[in-house]
Structures are given as C-alpha cells and as structure tokens.
C-alpha cells in the first residue's frame, strides 16, 4: 500500500473516542489497584467514607451525629485529604471527575434525565439497599470483592457468590417492577 492510499489516522478518534475492550479495562484496573496498594498500603475501596459523608451532612443540617455511640467521636477525626478514610475519599472524587473528563474528551457528554417515577423508585430503593448492604458486609463490590479476592480473603469469595445471587433476584425484580 502506498503512502497516499493509507487512510488518514484520526488521532483524536484513536486516543479518546474509541472504546476500549473489556479486557483492556480489566487489566488496567488490576494494575491501577495494585499501584494504589503499593503506594498507599490501602487497597481500593469506595463505600468506606460514605457513612462519614452522611454523618457530616447530618452535622451540617444540625443533627449532632458525632455524639452517637456508633460514630464514637470519630466523625471529628475524619478528613477528606488526610486521615483513615482519605484514600477512598480522594479516589471517589477522582473516579467521578475522571469519568466526566473521559466523556467530555470523547465529546459524548449528555445529561441523561430521569424519565419516569419508576427510575426514581429504583434509584431510592437501590441506593438504600446498596448502602445498608455495603456496611453490613463491610465492603462494596470493590472493597469486599475486587480488593478481597486478589488478597485471597475468604470473605471476598462468599461475597461474590451471594452478590451473584442478589443480582439474580435483583434482575427478576427489575424485570417485574422497574422496566
């Protein structure tokens, strides 16, 4: 093939627009999670700081959550940039902004509006169930699954089996009520 006949490479398309394969994403996620562990000593988690954010929000609206026995005064010690739960706090912010940057660079950002009351109900019920489940199981699909199975922790495997069963029940509910 001569030089003129070669199709012109759109570098923007190649760099930012083209979607990656699942396997590429899988390997990169594993590498990034490892880098995070090596540098900070704390494995990737998402939901750890959520209870603190809720507690902080309660404090903002005038409820003294810090005095609850369950927080045990630890709410004051929580910091977004430093402290025990600073690593997941910062990566959470990074994930939101990184995803936003990725969509914008691909020029495919659009606000996806809520279409129906069913979506509102699904969001409320799903969010509550995830929040309670993540705290009861001491981790979410990242902390108790993606950072646990590679650490050869038994709770990751148990979590995987039962999250799959839960997902199956959820699919049935989704088909029946939320679609």
């Amino acid at each position, binding site marked *: 093939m001569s030089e003129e006949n070669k199709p012109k490479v759109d570098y923007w398309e190649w760099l930012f627009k083209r979607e990656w394969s699942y396997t590429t994403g899988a390997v990169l996620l594993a590498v990034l999670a490892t880098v995070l562990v090596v540098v900070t000593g704390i494995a990737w988690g998402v939901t750890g700081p959520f209870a603190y954010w809720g507690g902080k929000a309660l404090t903002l609206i005038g409820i003294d959550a810090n005095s609850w026995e369950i927080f045990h005064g630890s709410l004051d010690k929580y910091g977004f940039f430093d402290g025990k739960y600073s690593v997941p706090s910062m990566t959470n912010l990074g994930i939101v902004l990184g995803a936003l940057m990725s969509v914008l660079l691909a020029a495919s950002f659009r606000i996806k509006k809520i279409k129906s009351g069913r979506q509102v109900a699904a969001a409320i019920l*799903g969010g509550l169930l995830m929040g309670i489940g993540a705290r009861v199981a001491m981790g979410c699909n990242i*902390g108790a699954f993606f950072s646990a199975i590679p650490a050869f922790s038994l709770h990751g495997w148990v979590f995987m089996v039962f999250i799959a069963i839960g997902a199956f029940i959820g699919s049935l509910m989704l088909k029946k009520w939320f679609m």
Partner: protein
Amino acid sequence: MAEISSGIKRRSRRVRETPEQRKRKKIIQISTGVGVFALICVIAYLAQQSNPKGAFIVMIGAALGYVLQRSRFCFTAALRDPALTGGTNLTKAVIVSLAVASFLFMAVNMANMGLSLENFEQVKAAGKIKPVGFHTVLGALLFGIGAVISGGCASGTLMRMGEGFQQQWLTFVFFIIGSVVGIFPSPRLSPAKPRQPSSCQRHWEDGCRQ
C-alpha cells in the same frame, strides 16, 4: 436496560444537527474536558498540601474513572448479564481482572515479606482481609439486589455520576443515607475483633473499639 430503550427513543426524537453545530459541540466538549483535567490537577495540588501522597491518590482515582468509563467496565453488569441477557463477555473480563490482580497482589506480598512469606502474620498483606460470616452473606445479597435495581454498583454509580446520569446522582444520595442506616446493625452482625470485655464500646468500623 431502561437506559438503552430510552436512549433509542431519544435518538429518534432528537433534532438533526448540522455538521457545523456538531463540530462546535465537539470543540466545546473537548475544551471542557481539558478544563476538567485542569480541575483534577488543582484538586491534586490541594490534596498534596495536607497529604504527602494526596496528588498521587487523586490522579490514580481519575485514572480509575477514566479506565472504567472508556472500557464501559461494570461489575454489576458482569454479575447481572448472565442472568438477564445471557451475555458473559464482561463476566470473563472481571475474571481476567481478578486473576491479574491476584498475581500482582501476591507479587507485592512477596516483595514485602520475602518469597517464603514467613512474615505473613507481622506485615499487613496487600488488599482487604476481613472476617467472614453471616453478615457477609446478608450484606452481599442486599448489595446485589440494590446494585441491579439502581443500575450501578459502587464504582459504577460514581462513574455514571460523572457521565451525567441524573438517576445515579439520586442513587448516590440514598447510597449515603443507606450507609448511615447500615452502620447501626453492622457491629452487631460482624464478629470483627476477638472478644473484648463487655465494657468496650461497639464501633461500626471494626466491630469493637476501646
């Protein structure tokens, strides 16, 4: 699923854009994207002020978000699709990811503890190692149901918040409310620490804290 069908509906209703409009939109979006990158850098700078590893952590987070969005990686879909649609591509990808991460985590452990892992009890192993019990079963079931209903797991919710899904913003608010509700049963369910004297106060992070 609901997203896909509504997306199709919207596309048919959408007014056709002229090429100039499309080009303008593209330029606006890409420059905003560069602006978001600058914002991430500013936040990384701010984080660096109070945490010696802050900038690095923020950047890793942004990279995680970028990778999740670019490859449409979704743990919920990986668990849901075999039951809902029969697709297993994403499930296979999650298995690949776990395999690679297992290998790398063990490499980190071996680097920290020596090849024979003789100091395994003394040094903190990479990853999360936590007690298993009925609380894991119950929590995973609730989490799985919630993740499929709301259309995004923990990482997926955050990623879709960035993508502009209003539904996930609402989910996120109730995710936080649910987390606050969930810390009340968690110390009673999880036998996290060895039994302590009964005077010790229960704390949700690790079951029991003096």
